[in-house]
Structure formats: structure tokens, C-alpha cells
């Protein structure tokens, strides 16, 4: 009889445990993002400058700057179009270099995109087959990264278009 009660107790308590785990699980966001995977070092890579097609190494970019901002964009991506005015605003208010990474794009389309909406970038690099974006840990366009230019580690990620609040946040983070 005692044995039976212990059994009952064990079963009921494990059920309660499962119940609460599920309950907590319900309140979790189940859309996966990599936003929290930060403080990883970006290994050096080589790319070509957008206009001049000159070879550039990532490690030689803006050598005098403590931070850089890297923005992945493409002329065929609609959210990029929406985001662009915020990038321009960001560049106006910040002393940090803004690096564009032109993702899987056609040169002509990208050029007319910039002449139409303005060019906020200090340097634009080309990512012809998307491999540089993978090296950085991106999975879509647009994405924006605040990077410590001394140790090449990612400080903050913004997946999707940045808004005005993000602009302010980047400004305050890059001041430190």
C-alpha cells in the first residue's frame, strides 16, 4: 500500500513537472534567430571594392577606427530599400565607417539603386556568391553588424532592416 502511494506520488509529480515545462515552453518565442550569437571573431577574407574592383582584405579596412558597421544589402531586396534612409541618417550622425557588403547582386542594378537613394557607405565590398555573408554569420538581407575593428569581433547584430531606434542604439554603442 505504501509502495503504491509512493508510485502515485512519483507519477503525479513528474506529470506536474512536464506540465510546467510545456507551460514555460509555450511562452518562448519559437522563431529561430542567430541574433544572440555574438562576440565571435570574423576570420579575415578577401573581396573586391565595388566601383574600382580592387582587391581588399577585411583586416586592412579602416585601420584607424575602433569600430566599423557592416551592412549587407542588395538591390533586389525590398526591405533594403526601406532601410536605406535610416542608413543615411546613421552615417550622418556617426564617426564610424559604414561598410556595405553588396550581396549576390548585379553591378548595374546596384549602381542605379545607389544613385537613386544615395550612397551612405564609406566602402562597398562585393559578395558575389554569398560566401562572405556566411563567414560573417548572416542568413539574409539586409543585416547590420557592429564590429570591434581591433579584434574583429561582432558586438551587435541586427537581422532585417534597421529602424530609427536601432540607429540611436548603434550611435550610443559606438561612442564607448
Amino acid at each position, binding site marked *: 500500500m505504501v509502495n*503504491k502511494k509512493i508510485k502515485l506520488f512519483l507519477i503525479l509529480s513528474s*506529470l506536474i513537472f512536464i506540465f510546467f515545462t510545456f507551460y514555460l515552453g509555450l511562452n*518562448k518565442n519559437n522563431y529561430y534567430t542567430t541574433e544572440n550569437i555574438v562576440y565571435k571573431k570574423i576570420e579575415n577574407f578577401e573581396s573586391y571594392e565595388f566601383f574600382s574592383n580592387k582587391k581588399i582584405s577585411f583586416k586592412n579596412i579602416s585601420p584607424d577606427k575602433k569600430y566599423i558597421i557592416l551592412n549587407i544589402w542588395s538591390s533586389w531586396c525590398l526591405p533594403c530599400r526601406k532601410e536605406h534612409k535610416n542608413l543615411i541618417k546613421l552615417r550622418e550622425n556617426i564617426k564610424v565607417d559604414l561598410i556595405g557588403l553588396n550581396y549576390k547582386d548585379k553591378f548595374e542594378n546596384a549602381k542605379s539603386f545607389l544613385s537613386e537613394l544615395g550612397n551612405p557607405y564609406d566602402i562597398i565590398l562585393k559578395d558575389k556568391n554569398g560566401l562572405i555573408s556566411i563567414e560573417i554569420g548572416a542568413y539574409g538581407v539586409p543585416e547590420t553588424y557592429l564590429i570591434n575593428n581591433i579584434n574583429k569581433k561582432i558586438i551587435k547584430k541586427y537581422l532585417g532592416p534597421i529602424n530609427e531606434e536601432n540607429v540611436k542604439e548603434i550611435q550610443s554603442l559606438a561612442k564607448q
Partner: protein
Amino acid sequence: MISHLGSYSLIFCTIFAFLIILQSAKLIGNQSKIFPKKIYTIITLQLFFVIFSFSCLLIAFVSSDFSNITVYNNSHTEKPFFYKISGVWGNHEGSLLLWLLVLVLFLFLFILDTKNYDNKYKLLTVIFQEIIILGFLLFIIITSNPFDYIFPVPLEGLGLNPILQDPALAIHPPILYIGYVGTSLIFSSSLAAVINNTVNSEWAKQIKKWVFLSWIFLTLGIMLGSIWAYYELGWGGFWFWDPVENVSLMPWFCLTALLHTILVLEKRNALKNWTIVLSIATFSLSMSGTFLVRSGILNSIHTFANDPSRGVFILTFLFFLIFLAIIVLFIYSENDKKTSNNFNILSKETAVLVNNWFMMYFLSVVLIGTIYPIFLEVFTNEKISVGPPFYQKLMIPFLIPFFIFMSFGPRVKWINDKLKKINYTQIIVFISSLIIAYIIFTNSSVSYLFSSFLIAASIFLVLNSLRDFFSKSIQIPQKISHFSFSILILSILLNGIYSEEFNSNMKVGDELKFIDKTIKFKGINFDEKDNYKLLRGDFEVIDSGKNTLNFNPEIRIYNQPVISTSEADIKTNLFNDNFIVFTLLKDNEIFNVRYQHKPFMIWIWISIIMLAFGGTLAVIKYGK
């Protein structure tokens, strides 16, 4: 107007559910042999109102009444008539109404079926079933009312996702739900039998056909979903170990175990507690399936519109039922020690236990694989994927012993069988299996030693099941189902080993070589149908024997909602399926073309249908 009526009748049903529970509880002590007329009448009325309510939703869908929010969200005037009907259960709210309909209908049929049974047992079953019905009614009314209004009335609906506009998927939910809901009746009646202290051969005989019925529908329901995934998703596979698929497989394993155990209870009056545990577990798993799918807790291909309050409701209700069941079980169950006797190692009883052992193992693999990521995330905040490799690694090694047990199991006699000293036929069967497996492997590119043993074991099972047809001690339904199962396994294995796929980007006019075949992309043409435009590709596949196959896969662009889908073109014959699907890439000129050669595909479907057919024969036999 119609929506009002539907909504009110649901409220009536709720009142009836309360009435039935109260009245039945009052009448339980009554010694009368005749089932109380009053309760029978209310159950009939309840059934009527649920059917009425369901019809209201049906009419709203067919007449495209967009003042109803469910219709607005899921239908469109241009949608074909057939899919207007299937739209009723192609969404969260409507599918729950269908679920409710089956719950009430099954209870009604149960009452009709058990004319000569003990009143107390019937009334208790009614009470438990009505508790479930009540739970679902409240769930529908509080969180998912299909009759909610929208004002001002929109002129046009949002349409049904075209990927769901498909004949197999249109009938998949009703079939699957009958399977799921059938287990509710097993749950209710097993608890009733526990309280009534009648968990015995007679009860087993009576509930057996419900077990088989649920199992048949669940089997067919899973198959329909799988067929749909095979040709509609265009990935060429038929099982992806997606959480939503797993969720339907879990009650299937449990029900299959129950299917065998119930026979031991019937013939030998043994394994009482275990039968009850399985009955409760089967329904709990069906319910957890609903919870996992509808609450949005899982990340899956198939998602319903999610709402956390729904998740909380089903979760609470599910655990309420499990608690209720466990407490009933602990208070009323007989002490196992007194009634149980041991089984002889060489007996059908033991064979059934071994079957259960494997079923429970496969169940645990699928269950743990499905819910483990949820647990891990809650406790460590880390997200992992548990995909096909996990299930394959944990299940495949266990298949070999399972096949060997299953080869012998059906022929073992009840109580006590004797082992023959040397069984020559068995040796011949064994050697033939090895030879066939060897022949298969010398002709394939797969060179794992393990796979060859797996194939050998499954051929051994096929040959033995074939041999069982000549055995007099095995009943025909069982012969058919076991043989079909062995064919199913063999076709899945051979299909897995011999499938070949070609995946490449092509332009019109391209010609590419793939192993010994040539694939030609001859052209595309445009066409327009009622509710979609289409792009039809013209492909030709020439094999080494100069045989040509023509394929016309389609890319459809639906009007409402604007979504494009790829329709595979599949050429099926007895030995293999040839499959081409193509999708448009960004540049409008280049297409991704996927050609697949899938041997024995048709046998997977045929064997599942035969498996279910075996079950149907059993129901007919037991129904007499």
C-alpha cells in the same frame, strides 16, 4: 444568420453535456437492465445539434458567407466547390468542430453497439466521454469559435493556401481525426471498465473493434498525409520526421501495441493493467498531438495560426484528463500481484509482449526526439534540431531483432509452445534471405555491411509472412496485415537504398546526363485555369535502353492568395516512380529541375492500404 444558429447550437450542446453528466451520475446506482431513455434522448439531441452546427459552417463555406470570420480567412468565391467543402476542416476552428462531431458520433454509435451490456459500465463510459466532449466544447466556444463575426462584411475572402488545395489533403483531416477521436472512446470505456471492475475478456471482446477501427483510420490518415507530402511538397520524400508527422505516428505505435495486447486480454484474461495503461496513453498521445500542433510550441512545416491562450487551454485540459485517469486507475485497479500469472517463454503471450516492447521503444524514440528540444530550450535556452538522422540512428539497429521476432511471433501458440529440434523450412528460408540480400547488394552502390543484414532480415520477414499464409492456426486478417507490413518495410528499405536523384539548374533547351540517363528540357508553355495561371514544363528523360519518358510538371501561380506552387509530374509503374518537379529561380529563365527515380514507391502505398484492409476484415469479423 446561419452563423448565429451554429453558435447557439454549440451552446445547447454544452448544456446537454452538463445534463448528461449529472443525469448519468445520478442513475449509476440504478440496477435497471435497460439503458435510461432520458440519457439516450439527450445524447441523440446533442448529436443532432452538433451535426446542425457543422452544417451551418458547411453552408457558410459553400455560400461564401464572408460575414463569418473563419470563412473570410480561409475561403474565396473563386475556389473550386470541392475545396470550399474541405475548407471547413482545413483550418483550426473548423477542424475542432469536426473533431467534436466525431466525438459525439462515436459516443452515439457506442451506445447503439452495446445494447446488451451492463448499464453501469455504459453510463460511466458516457460520463467520461461527455467530460471530453465538454472540454472540447468549451475550448471551441472560448478560444476558437468558428462562428465569430466580422463587420463590415468583406466582399471577398482571403482564400485557402493553395498548397492545401489538393484531393489527398482534403480528405486527410477527417480520416485522421476519426482515428484520433476513436481513441477517446477507448479511453472512456477503459476507465469505465476499471471502475466497474470488468476489465476482462468480455470487455476486451467488446472494445476490440473500436481499437481496430481507430487503428485503420489512423493508418490511412497518416498515409494520406504522407502521399500529399510526397507529391505536393516536391522534395521527393514521403516522411520527413517533421514534428507534426511524428505526432501522428506516436498514437499509431501505441495503438498498434494495444491492438495486440487486447487479444491477450481477450483470450487469456491477462495483462489487464497494461491494457488500461495503453488505452489511456493512446488517447493522451492523440491529445498531446493536438496540443503540440495547435499551440505553436513546435517549429514545423505545417503550422496553424497560433494563439498562446489555446495552448494553455489544451495543455490544462490534457493534463486534467491524464490526472483523472491516473487517479481512477490507482483507486480502482486490482492489485496486479493477485491476478497476474507469468507467461511461458514460448507462448503467444510472450510474443505479444515482445511486440509491445519494440512498439514502446519506437514510440519513446519519436516522443523524446519530438519534445526534447522543447525541454532543452526551457532549461538551457539552447535550440537544437532533432532531424531524420537521429531517428534513423536509434531505430534502424533495432529493426533487425524486431524483424526476426516478428518472423516467428505469429506462429507461436497460446500458453505453451514446443520448440522443434531442427526446423528445416526455417533454415531454407534463412538461407534464401541471405542469398537474395547478397544478390541485391552486388547490384547496388550501397556497401554497408549493416544494410545488407537489414535487407536480409526484412526479406526473412517477408518470406516467413508469406509462409504463414499456409498456416491454419493464423487468422486471415492477421495474415494479410502482417504480410502487408513486411512488404511495407521491404519497399521502404529498397526505396531508401535505390533512390536516385538529380538536382540541377537548367534553361530551356538544356540537355544533361545523369548516370545512364539523359534529361532534356524541351520547352515551357503558359496556360490559365479557373483560379490559377500555370507554367508547364516539357521534359524528356531517355534511359540507356532508349526508352523515353515525357514529363509535364507545372508551376502554378494562384490568384487568391497569390502563392506559387510546384506540381510534380510523377510517372508510376509497378517497379518504380519517376518524378520531375521544377521551380522558378530568380532570373525568370533558369529553373531548378529535380528528377528522381524512386523504386517500389507504389508498393509503399499499396501495402499500407492492404495493412488497413487486414484491419477492416478483422472489424467485420469481430462485428458479427
